[in-house]
């Protein structure tokens, strides 16, 4: 392959000869930016703040559960705590981090685009997210306190008779804002990926992270409007005298659950797919091989998205009013594409040259933890097994295994792409210590919860006076939670210690995809020059032309007609 210096892309007549950008500075720059990198960074910072807030709620919960008749908080406060812990973590941290933070920064540079397709809409998404988060948290400052009906807000508990008060309405309002934020991001990601790829970057040469973000964006468009509609109907029941979800007026409370979970199940894949994508970028780089089974990965991602629209009522098995066998078989089947991904990650490492950077450790930790969470999910897909584990700590343990896996994946993404975004490496020694605290802490936190669930401990219990013997396992779980908290502290320490210390250079990891071809951080509109794109690893091809990917079975280095 010949050298790939080309004239820069000409964007709206702008001259790339000098990168000086005369524009607003300081806070006005932040308020008026439409640069996806700055917006993505804002999302990242806000999301990490939400993670810390949600984490503080978690530590208080663990404190309350440290003894059978805990009095750290009152019964009423406890209901607020777990509601807001779940709400902040899912609506305000995990979702926005998954599709607003790293995706915003990375997707355009992975496909060679100068920005997202709709930069101003992108900025609007961030402001809706920030104001939505503030709205939801404002509940704590009202007389009745924050929302207290669980992050799922089941009817009739969430109606105005059972939960009067502004906290619930602020919760609904916050979700209306963050919901539109997500929908606009979904539109932006889809348009960007469909229309702004660099020449030669066909759909099947996109990085798997970008594929996953495309499918996530489509899922957002499918699911979030449903939640928004359901929330508007809930608000109407609360304030406009409608009876959509109440028996007294001829409505059906279970309708809320159908609508909520029709959004709620795709939502968990909206959360998971971006992290699957991150890990699928990291494992190949640190195994020095291409991803194994690229097309299988794409197929698996599409299958997960398709199936995820058909499993929602597995959250409703115990209602007695849903079609059990349909949702059971669909939920069991969705394990298959996830399994394909796990085997492909192993296949990527197989016969590789693995080096254990912090990002790689976190990625492997993600795979192991997600395996555990995924296997326990299979039990829940069987209605007879779900009947007695539903609403117990077994379910809590299952989804915490899975979301802690996502946190490990998110940390992998931050350590991997942090240098690209900021231009500086994070300290690897601290990172590795952080990994061990996070990974071990996760298992120590979740495993006692599985056991407690099987011993009969229900969820959302402020006290457990009938079963003081549960205290030991609760205390072990809390110890795990402390380890997780310490790992977060180590992360903050790492950022402080590494601040502007070690410049990263364009490609510190000898990574494969297009974003590693540009500078760290990338310039305004992302690229001074682009390489020729002939595979899904344009930067690798440019740096290692004699080691381009092989078809299966061939162990020679010769490139036989690979286009």
């Amino acid at each position, binding site marked *: 392959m010949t050298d790939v210096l080309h004239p820069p892309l000409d964007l709206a007549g702008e001259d790339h000869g000098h990168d000086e950008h005369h524009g607003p500075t300081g806070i006005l720059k932040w308020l008026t930016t439409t640069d996806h990198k700055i917006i993505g960074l804002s999302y990242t910072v806000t999301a990490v703040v939400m993670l810390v807030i949600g984490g503080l709620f978690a530590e208080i919960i663990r404190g309350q559960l440290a003894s059978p008749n805990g009095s750290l908080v009152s019964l009423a406060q406890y209901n607020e705590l777990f509601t807001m812990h779940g709400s902040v973590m899912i609506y305000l941290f995990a979702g926005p981090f998954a599709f607003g933070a790293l995706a915003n920064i990375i997707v355009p540079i992975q496909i060679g685009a100068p920005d997202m397709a709709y930069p101003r809409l992108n900025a609007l998404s961030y402001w809706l997210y920030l104001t939505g988060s503030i709205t939801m948290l404002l509940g704590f400052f009202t007389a009745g306190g924050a929302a207290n009906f669980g992050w799922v807000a089941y009817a009739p508990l969430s109606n105005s008779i059972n939960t009067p008060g502004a906290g619930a309405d602020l919760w609904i309002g916050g979700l209306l804002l963050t919901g539109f934020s997500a929908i606009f991001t979904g539109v932006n990601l889809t348009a960007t990926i469909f229309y702004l790829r660099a020449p030669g970057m066909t759909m099947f040469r996109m990085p798997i992270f970008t594929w996953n973000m495309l499918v996530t964006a489509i899922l957002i468009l499918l699911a979030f409007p449903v939640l928004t509609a359901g929330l508007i109907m809930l608000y109407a029941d609360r304030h406009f005298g409608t009876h959509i979800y109440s028996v007294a007026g001829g409505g059906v409370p279970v309708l809320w659950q159908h609508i909520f979970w029709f959004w709620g199940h795709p939502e968990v894949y909206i959360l998971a797919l971006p992290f699957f994508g991150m890990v699928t970028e990291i494992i190949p780089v640190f195994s*020095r091989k291409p991803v194994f089974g690229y097309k299988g990965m794409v197929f698996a991602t599409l299958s997960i998205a398709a199936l995820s629209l058909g499993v929602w009522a597995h959250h409703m098995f115990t209602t007695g009013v849903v079609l059990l066998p349909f949702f059971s078989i669909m939920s069991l089947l969705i394990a298959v594409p996830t399994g394909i991904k796990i085997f492909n990650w192993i296949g990527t490492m197989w016969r590789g040259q693995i080096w254990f950077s912090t990002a790689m450790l976190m990625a492997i930790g993600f795979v192991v933890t997600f395996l555990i969470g995924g296997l326990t999910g299979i039990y829940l897909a069987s209605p007879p097994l779900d009947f007695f584990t539903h609403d117990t700590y077994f379910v809590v343990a299952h989804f915490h295994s899975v979301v802690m896996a996502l946190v490990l994946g998110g940390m992998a993404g931050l350590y991997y792409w942090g240098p690209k975004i900021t231009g500086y490496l994070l300290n690897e020694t601290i990172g590795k210590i952080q990994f061990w605290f996070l990974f071990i802490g996760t298992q120590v936190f979740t495993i006692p919860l599985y056991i407690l669930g099987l011993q009969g401990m229900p969820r959302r219990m402020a006290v457990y006076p009938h079963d003081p013997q549960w205290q030991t396992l609760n205390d072990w779980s809390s110890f795990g939670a402390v380890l997780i908290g310490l790992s977060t502290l180590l992360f903050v320490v790492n950022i402080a210690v590494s601040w502007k210390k070690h410049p990263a250079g364009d490609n510190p990891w000898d990574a494969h995809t297009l974003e590693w071809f540009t500078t760290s951080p990338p310039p305004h509109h992302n690229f001074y020059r682009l390489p020729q794109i002939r595979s899904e690893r344009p930067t690798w091809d440019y740096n290692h032309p004699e080691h381009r990917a092989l078809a299966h079975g061939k162990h020679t280095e010769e490139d036989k007609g690979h286009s």
Partner: protein
Amino acid sequence: MPNFGVTKGVTTNSSSVYHLWQGFSVGAAIIGAFVIALIVYAVVRYRRKGDVIPAQTQYHLPLELIYTIVPILIVFALFGATLVVENKVVANPKTSVVVDVNAFQWGWKFAYPGSSAVVVGQTTQDPVMEIPVNTDVHINLTSTDVIHGFYVKEFNFSRYALPGVVNQFTIRAVNTGTFFGQCTQLCGLYHSLMFFKVKVVTMDQYTAWLNSFQNTGAAQASQTATQQQTSSHVQSKITASSGAN
């Protein structure tokens, strides 16, 4: 075979569910151990040695097909086993023993149609649902306000009490004894304290207990209640619902 954390329970269905749990667990343990072994092996065996760039293998179609199709087959086996147990658990054979269970914020009311037996209690009063052993007991479960969860660990079972809906299920206990139950679906302030008990007795004891209500009527119900501080909201619910259903 290990119990994998679950027990046989005290009903005919609970032991079917228990065996299904064991079957799933054997599968999960084998698959989990296999995959973790692969990961550990890969991570140890393929550690970086120097600066060599390994063969850039991208795919292997036969292998990928295997680990697509085999999991699908496993899934169908699990589904088949699920259906067998599920059909048993949701079956409602004809029986003469019927209990109407009414969940409310924050207690339980057990009424026995065809007799004047009514038991009602809230939070830590632990109202007791008495049922006969070795008999199909048909339960009609509903709620008068929000959604509650009827859960008895020894039954390996739970079901929502939904307002406006009567959920029907059948329990056939095989052991006598007293078993704890509690509400598992968040229902407001005293959700953590919404306890009840199920007392399984011989058929003779059950019949005698039912008949004892003929003489003293609904007053019997409040015998099971101890003095307890309650909000007026809850208090009015008890007086409203302790009459005929």
